[in-house]
């Protein structure tokens, strides 16, 4: 069993505390606004617990179910209650499953029969809507796929279901992942749970907001240039982008195939790591998926009781100099510098490291992404699936279906990519961008030969206002400077909340990005877990639900 902080203690704890059980039995009906949804933090009575409430929702769920202190149905009901309560403010979901409770009841019957449970049994998972699900619509936030239900599950989704996870629904995103705010969804704008006048980040904004507001326990996103890490930073949750090739892309609607990865969101490092473990591994349906063995990431989650005073002694950390320059908000810089000090206190040796080619990554990234998207999105022509516009000639049918189906940003990126790939221009744009990718890969390799991990902010600012950058494509693109290089190099990176800046009713979270060597997610998870467990005076529960998650 995984050794972690809380579960054993909290388990024995709520066995001996009848008042807590009472709380669940008095759970009010779903429709009641005053109902108090169950959360794992309400399970642990904080007044008697020296440590923060049980940090892994996945492990707490397992313990609650195995110890029969909660049924899967109770858990599912409580999350669905909160989901419905917050959804009018947040709009993080494009589709909510109607079979969650049925699946939970089925699980409860299994528990009653003492059947073996999968490691994700009863875990409520939300899936970004550009990841295919066989029984739910999958639109990628685009009108071109309105009402489309794929005939298969993405490999990552199939694995989650097989391990017992319950898919709660499909989350909102910038159309096909093209954006950094989730405002470019064809259906709705998602709000940030920390301040509903602000964006949740993007493109996986729905998945990040849903986890932040505890509408689900964990979620899947996709990260082409930062689409998991930047919204994790904006919403104050953990976002994990694995190494390119670690997780199968089968069933992920392709945007830029050389950069796309499926990533994980959780409210704790442990949850992100457990979810990553569940979806990782070779898949014959994705030729770029790696055959490398998937280590047991949970072995990295050392129990706090075993922590020495300098648990990360000797670890070499490189703070990327180029990410702390003038263009970055001072509050963000100071939060990241404070995080660096915290790592030093844990025994790390933190030094600044320069990646001279860093700023070249942004234009190179946008050349590659728009070029590849112009090719990948050519499949949406209204012939085999998706929305078709009637026309009396085939070419007009293509052109009108695509004109009606795609939003402005998607059209612009396709047109830009079409230009970059035009005959005679390949060498000037696509090839040069690929050469820059080589330069960036080498400079990361050098930096990671000298350091165990690299750190930087996850974004140049905290969450900004809805509408603030909507009509400024370059301003929006500029916000991706912290993350795109990691995709170009294919490296794993983890973002976790490390502090706050002023803004909104309760401050806005700031994310710290940790970048590791290829396939070294284990080290990232270990460092991030210890960082998270030792961070003082920070509680990343958004004001929207602060009363419920007491």
């Amino acid at each position, binding site marked *: 069993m995984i050794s972690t902080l809380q579960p054993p203690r909290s388990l024995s704890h709520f066995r001996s505390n009848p008042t807590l059980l009472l709380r669940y039995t008095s759970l009010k009906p779903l429709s009641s606004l005053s109902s108090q949804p169950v959360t794992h933090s309400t399970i642990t009575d904080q007044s008697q617990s020296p440590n923060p409430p049980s940090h892994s929702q996945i492990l707490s769920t397992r313990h609650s179910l195995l110890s029969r202190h909660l049924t899967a149905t109770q858990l599912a009901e409580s999350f669905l209650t909160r989901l419905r309560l917050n959804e009018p403010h947040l709009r993080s979901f494009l589709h909510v499953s109607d079979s969650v409770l049925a699946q939970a009841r089925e699980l409860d019957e299994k528990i009653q029969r003492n059947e073996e449970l999968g490691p994700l049994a009863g875990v409520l998972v939300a899936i970004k809507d550009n990841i295919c699900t066989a029984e739910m619509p999958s639109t990628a936030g685009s009108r071109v796929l309105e009402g489309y239900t794929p005939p298969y599950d993405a490999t990552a989704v199939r694995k989650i279901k097989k391990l017992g996870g319950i898919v709660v629904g499909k989350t909102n995103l910038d159309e096909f992942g093209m954006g950094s705010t989730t405002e470019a969804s064809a259906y709705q704008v998602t709000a940030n749970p920390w301040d509903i006048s602000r964006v949740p980040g993007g493109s996986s904004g729905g998945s990040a907001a849903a986890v932040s507001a505890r509408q689900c326990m964990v979620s899947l996103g996709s990260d082409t240039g930062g689409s998991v890490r930047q919204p994790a930073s904006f919403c104050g949750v953990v976002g994990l982008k694995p190494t390119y090739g670690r997780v199968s892309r089968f069933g992920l609607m392709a945007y830029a195939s050389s950069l796309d990865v499926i990533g994980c969101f959780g409210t704790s490092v442990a949850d992100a790591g457990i979810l990553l473990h569940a979806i990782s591994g070779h898949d014959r349906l994705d030729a770029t998926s790696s055959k490398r063995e998937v280590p047991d990431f949970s072995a990295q989650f050392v129990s706090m009781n075993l922590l020495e005073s300098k648990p990360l002694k000797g670890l070499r950390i490189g703070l990327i100099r180029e990410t702390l320059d003038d263009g970055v908000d001072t509050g963000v810089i100071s939060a990241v510098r404070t995080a660096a000090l915290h790592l030093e206190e844990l025994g790390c040796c933190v030094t600044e490291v320069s990646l001279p080619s860093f700023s070249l990554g942004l234009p190179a990234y946008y050349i590659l992404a728009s070029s590849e998207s*112009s090719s990948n999105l050519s499949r949406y022509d209204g*012939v085999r699936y998706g929305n078709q516009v009637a026309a009396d000639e085939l070419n007009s049918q293509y052109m009108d279906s695509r004109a009606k189906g795609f939003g402005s940003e998607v059209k612009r990126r396709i047109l830009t990519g079409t230009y970059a790939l*035009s005959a005679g221009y390949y*060498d000037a744009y696509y090839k040069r961008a690929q050469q820059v990718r080589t330069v960036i890969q080498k400079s990361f390799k050098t930096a990671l030969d000298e350091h165990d991990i690299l750190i930087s902010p996850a974004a140049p600012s905290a969450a900004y206002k809805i509408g603030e950058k909507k009509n400024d494509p*370059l301003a929006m*693109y*500029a916000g991706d400077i912290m993350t795109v290089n990691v995709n170009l190099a*294919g490296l794993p990176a983890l973002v976790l909340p490390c502090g706050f800046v002023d803004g909104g009713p309760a401050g806005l979270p700031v994310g710290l990005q940790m970048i590791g060597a*290829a396939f070294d997610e284990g080290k990232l998870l270990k460092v991030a877990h210890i960082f998270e467990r030792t961070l003082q005076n920070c509680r990343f529960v958004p004001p929207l639900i602060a009363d419920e998650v007491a």
Partner: protein
Amino acid sequence: MGSRALLLVKGVSSSPVPKNQLFCNFNCKSNFPRPNNNWVRTNCSTTQSSGPSLEPPDLPRLAQTARISLTPHEVEEFAPKIGLVIDWFGQLQDVDLQSVEPSIRADTEGDSFRADIPETFENREAMIAAVPNYEEPYIKVPKVLNKE
């Protein structure tokens, strides 16, 4: 930061400024970490190593190639935005990349192609159900005209 930079670019976007100058405005005024001078030739003159001269985007033609009908309003709205982005791409022309091999993606030991043998997709009905216009056993499309 980015928005500040863009305001500047916007101020000159419609004037016939040489594209490299435009890029310099964006890059220099944005307070972004700038490329080390080892990588960027400090003068902003065009230094294309090879190939034809790069024409600015001709939007109607691109739209035709990409099979997307654009309204006149969209052409008007998109042209400056796409122009800006492509000018901004132009900064890579000034980077010395001679003798650098291009990488098609991160090297992660993939490339494990399965045998080139057809396999039957089991959920064929669901796939066919998604086709907007189907007449057993064909997917129906309007007539294919040859313009020539």
